[in-house]
């Protein structure tokens, strides 16, 4: 008979008897975890590719930190091209009493040249595409921004010195950035209204964009000209490399979430290995009989491997289908987050899903099943004959190779893949070590317990290998979730609370030279003592020791140095060293040195390769300024005070124009501080530190929700390992349950024994997870947040509770047959 038919028949029998359900579930889960992540990132990438032009607002864009004039502007005016421009900068936005720091965007006529703003039509409540840009004298607000300010269409909105009428709410902007950190209201005004607002002044930080679109030939000509003629601080973006920040974010998300999903694949693989062993054990006798009846080794392999392959295809299809449903459900959310309309998914995730499912099955499921071919026919007569265990080395090798392959593929590099593999194996090994130690403790405890309790705990310690696998697998899933929760809530709160009590809570930016004295007076009136306003002068690096320096002076791999050398940054001047600065080399000036001296933050100096004694020259609005590096400083950036990479000695920057910045601690009772300050000086930007911290928190919440969702797959995979282990010991359990019933044990007593066993497994998993998560959180606290390590009992309690619950529910479900089968049936069936 056709071997495929035999394999198919066997699969149907096994599915009906429930023998291969865990194997199937493990494959479905592994495929689902990887494929759902893949579907989502694939759709986002497609959206990006399809809407690249719309995302740019044109076919090509030149960005710069200064007005884009000269040759580039002339080239943009070539025949066949349309051109427009935008300006973006932060500013306070007022609506009645409400006041927020907003993201301003001033739009030139014709913007966007590709795509359109999508506006909410107040008349109909529906949406429509905008015809152009806001009329002069009016503005648009992002819908979320209007909600934040409590503004509605028709209200007067204060921006700088101007009052503009809110004309429309923007639902979607053509070139929206994927900026998780930006939840500030977005404000759109006509470019012609900018001068009247008084917001663009010397030293203001403004992003300029020149947008062109047109016939492809003309655009190509423009882009090749622009590439050659980009000025300093200017960047060209075309449809091909549109929104690199979105692309990077997607790429990172794909890799990170993909790797996170692989944690569940690894655990599912453990479940597959366990289930495959049980599967092959169940088929031992049948295979021996088939050998007796003349089946060749090849036939046995074809039947068993064929069955697995069919099962794999079934599991992969189900996993892919479920993932497809899941990503469909989150598509709306994704669309809102990316501000994109996303197209359907492609075939790549489907192929990935099948690839992962079949790899896991081949690497972990096939070795024990292949070993069935070696079953001796004599086993029909002598059941104790058993030579079908596959070589442990072979199993380990096949499994590790499969895992390495998956990780390598997902990480995109052998190095990262190996590191990840070692990381997962190391973590599992540590968890297994912890589990082993805790199980050893349990062994001692159980002698003090009675009856069903003792029996349950005895099961944990007797099946130590299986218990360790269950505890470490469940533990790994739980650990990931606990760690995430801990970082998201506890660490952020502790970091916030660890800020010094006198840390400033408001940054005031964009103070013009003539506003320094009145602002100081205003602050004094608000109870702020001795505020220091630091000049902030925008400068670009020109020369070091007389030698011209630009981004190209540094090799590709020193990306940060290249960026630093290209972009404008702020210089300031101070009289003395503040407590949050510490000189690490050289001598800080006292008084006023004869010639300009510079003090440089040590890491910044190291990045750019500056040393003490170097003569550094800057370009400040077309003028040259030189100073000698006389000291290097270490800066405590978390002091929440204005700090600068480069400060100059007193008086040396006096002739240069710029704005001022200060950070102050405003007493909590001064609730109208920001409103009054901005009312008096509309051009000032006030940054509320608490609001920023809230934003950070909101962002972390958002990102971790996604990661958490992926880690739930890991927890589910951990539960599957538990089920696989229970299933592997099902025959023993049935027999033992039967014996206990025969000896007078009631159903309730048997249930208690199971409760004690699975609570113990769950509790141990929770403890193992809590210990590992606490240690890891300690490392993160120390390295990322610079906070002392403290244990979190709540974390341990949560871990223990979730672990116990997960193990109890899964374990009691899996062993329900043990209680429900009459003892006579159990004994008859299994006694042999």
């Amino acid at each position: 008979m056709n071997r495929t038919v035999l394999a198919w028949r066997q699969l149907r029998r096994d599915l009906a008897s429930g023998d291969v359900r865990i194997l199937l579930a493990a494959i479905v889960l592994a495929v689902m975890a990887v494929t759902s992540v893949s579907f989502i990132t694939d759709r986002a990438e497609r959206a990006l590719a399809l809407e690249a032009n719309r995302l740019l607002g044109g076919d090509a864009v030149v960005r710069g930190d200064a007005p884009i004039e000269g040759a580039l502007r002339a080239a943009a005016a070539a025949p066949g091209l349309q051109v427009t421009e935008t300006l973006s900068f932060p500013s306070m936005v007022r609506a009645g009493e409400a006041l927020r720091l907003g993201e301003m965007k001033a739009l030139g006529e014709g913007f966007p040249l590709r795509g359109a703003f999508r506006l909410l039509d107040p008349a109909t409540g529906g949406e429509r595409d905008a015809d152009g840009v806001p009329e002069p004298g009016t503005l648009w607000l992002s819908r979320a921004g209007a909600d934040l300010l409590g503004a509605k269409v028709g209200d007067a909105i204060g921006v700088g010195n101007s009052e503009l009428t809110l004309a429309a709410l923007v639902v979607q902007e053509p070139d929206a950035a994927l900026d998780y950190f930006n939840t500030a209201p977005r404000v759109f005004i006509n470019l012609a209204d900018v001068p009247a607002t008084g917001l663009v002044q010397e030293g203001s930080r403004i992003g300029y964009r020149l947008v062109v679109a047109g016939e492809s030939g003309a655009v190509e000509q423009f882009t090749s000209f622009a590439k050659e003629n980009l000025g300093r601080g200017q960047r060209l973006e075309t449809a091909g490399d549109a929104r690199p920040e979105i692309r990077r974010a997607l790429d990172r998300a794909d890799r990170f979430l993909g790797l996170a999903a692989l944690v569940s694949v690894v655990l599912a693989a453990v479940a597959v290995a366990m289930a495959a062993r049980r599967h092959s054990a169940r088929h031992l006798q049948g295979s021996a009989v088939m050998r007796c009846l003349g089946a060749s080794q090849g036939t046995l392999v074809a039947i068993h491997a064929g069955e697995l392959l069919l099962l794999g295809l079934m599991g992969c299809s189900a996993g892919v289908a479920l993932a497809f449903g899941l990503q469909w459900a989150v598509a709306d959310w994704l669309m809102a987050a990316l501000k994109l309309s996303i197209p359907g998914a492609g075939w790549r995730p489907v192929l990935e899903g099948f690839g992962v499912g079949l790899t896991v099955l081949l690497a972990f499921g096939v070795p024990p099943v292949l070993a069935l071919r070696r079953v001796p026919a004599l086993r029909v007569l002598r059941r104790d004959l058993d030579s079908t265990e596959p070589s442990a080395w072979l199993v380990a090798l096949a499994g590790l190779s499969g895992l390495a392959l998956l990780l390598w593929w997902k990480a995109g590099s052998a190095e990262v893949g190996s590191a990840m593999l070692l990381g997962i194996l190391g973590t599992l090994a540590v968890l297994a070590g912890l589990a082993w130690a805790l199980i050893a403790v349990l062994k001692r405890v159980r002698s003090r317990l009675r009856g069903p309790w003792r029996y349950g705990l005895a099961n944990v310690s007797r099946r130590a290998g299986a218990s360790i696998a269950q505890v470490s697998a469940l533990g790994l899933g739980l650990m990931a979730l606990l760690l995430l929760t801990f970082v998201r809530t506890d660490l952020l709160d502790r970091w916030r609370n660890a800020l010094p009590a006198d840390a400033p809570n408001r940054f005031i930016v964009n103070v013009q030279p003539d506003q320094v004295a009145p602002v100081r007076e205003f602050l004094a009136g608000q109870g702020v003592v001795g505020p220091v306003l630091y000049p902030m002068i925008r400068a670009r690096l020109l020369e070091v020791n007389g030698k011209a320096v630009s981004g190209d002076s540094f090799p590709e791999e020193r990306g940060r140095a290249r960026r630093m050398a290209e972009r404008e940054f702020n210089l300031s001047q101070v009289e003395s060293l503040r407590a949050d600065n510490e000189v690490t080399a050289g001598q800080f000036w006292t008084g006023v040195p004869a010639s300009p001296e510079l003090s440089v933050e040590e890491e910044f100096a190291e990045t750019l390769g500056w040393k003490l004694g170097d003569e550094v020259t800057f370009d400040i609005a077309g003028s040259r300024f030189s100073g000698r590096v006389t000291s290097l400083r270490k800066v405590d950036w978390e002091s929440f005070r204005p700090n600068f990479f480069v400060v100059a000695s007193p008086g040396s920057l006096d002739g240069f124009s710029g704005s001022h910045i200060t950070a102050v601690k405003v007493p909590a009772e001064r609730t109208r501080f920001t409103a009054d300050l901005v009312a008096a000086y509309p051009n000032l930007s006030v940054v509320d530190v608490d609001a920023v911290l809230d934003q950070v928190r909101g962002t972390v919440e958002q990102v971790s929700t996604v990661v958490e969702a992926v880690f739930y797959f890991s927890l589910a995979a951990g539960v599957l390992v538990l089920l696989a282990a229970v299933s592997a010991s099902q025959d023993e359990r049935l027999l033992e349950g039967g014996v206990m019933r025969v000896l007078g044990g009631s159903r309730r007593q048997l249930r208690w024994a199971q409760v004690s066993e699975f609570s113990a497994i769950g509790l141990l998993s929770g403890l193992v997870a809590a210990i590992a998560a606490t240690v890891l959180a300690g490392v993160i606290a120390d390295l990322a947040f610079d906070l002392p390590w403290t244990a979190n009992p709540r974390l341990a309690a949560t871990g223990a509770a979730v672990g116990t619950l997960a193990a109890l529910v899964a374990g009691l479900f899996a062993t329900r047959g043990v209680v429900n089968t009459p003892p006579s049936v159990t004994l008859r069936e299994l006694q042999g």
Partner: protein
Amino acid sequence: MADSHDSPVAISQALRAEGLGKRVPLPTGELTILDGVGFTIAKGEAVAIVGASGSGKSTLLSLLAGLDVPSEGRVLLDGEALSALDEDGRARVRGEKVGFVFQSFQLLPSLTALENVMLPLELRGDDDAEGPARAILSLVGLGERLGHYPRQLSGGEQQRVALARAFVTRPAVLFADEPTGNLDTTTGQAIVELLFRLNRESGTTLVLVTHDERLAARCGRILRLDGGRLVSA
């Protein structure tokens, strides 16, 4: 009519089978395993159930011990009608009045010898399980091996633990199913001696299922089954 367990005669009976039948449905019809089996076993009596393979010995044992329910008829164990009880009720009766010895020992591998013997006492809620368990293990010659797990014991030793477990509850009736089936002749002989000695000393009623005619002959009475019917009692 009063239940038979109310009468003085019934009180002296350890076990009574009345018209016991067991049928199982098959696709081709009904298979009769036991048919109209009835007998009485007095307290303290030792009875062997013998018969060829498939004669219904093990099924009869299951019904007598309350491990299974008959299709017809009833079993009275120490005066209590088993068929009137649900599975947990029968489990309680087993815990209180019945001891078992199996061919394949059926010790729980996760428990030590001592813990295995303590288990039935603990299951029925005795406060002191350890004292009697230790005592009886010494009695069967395993006083030095209390902490050993089944896998660390020989077959004979495992069966001795099983005997200790069976007798530790001082059961009214002890059921033994081919107790020497998995042992070599010498060890089997020793186990049989021990079984009968313990039975004698504790005054327990013994119901023994066996193929072994010599072992059956050591019992006071032989019930012979053939094709599901009792052919001699």
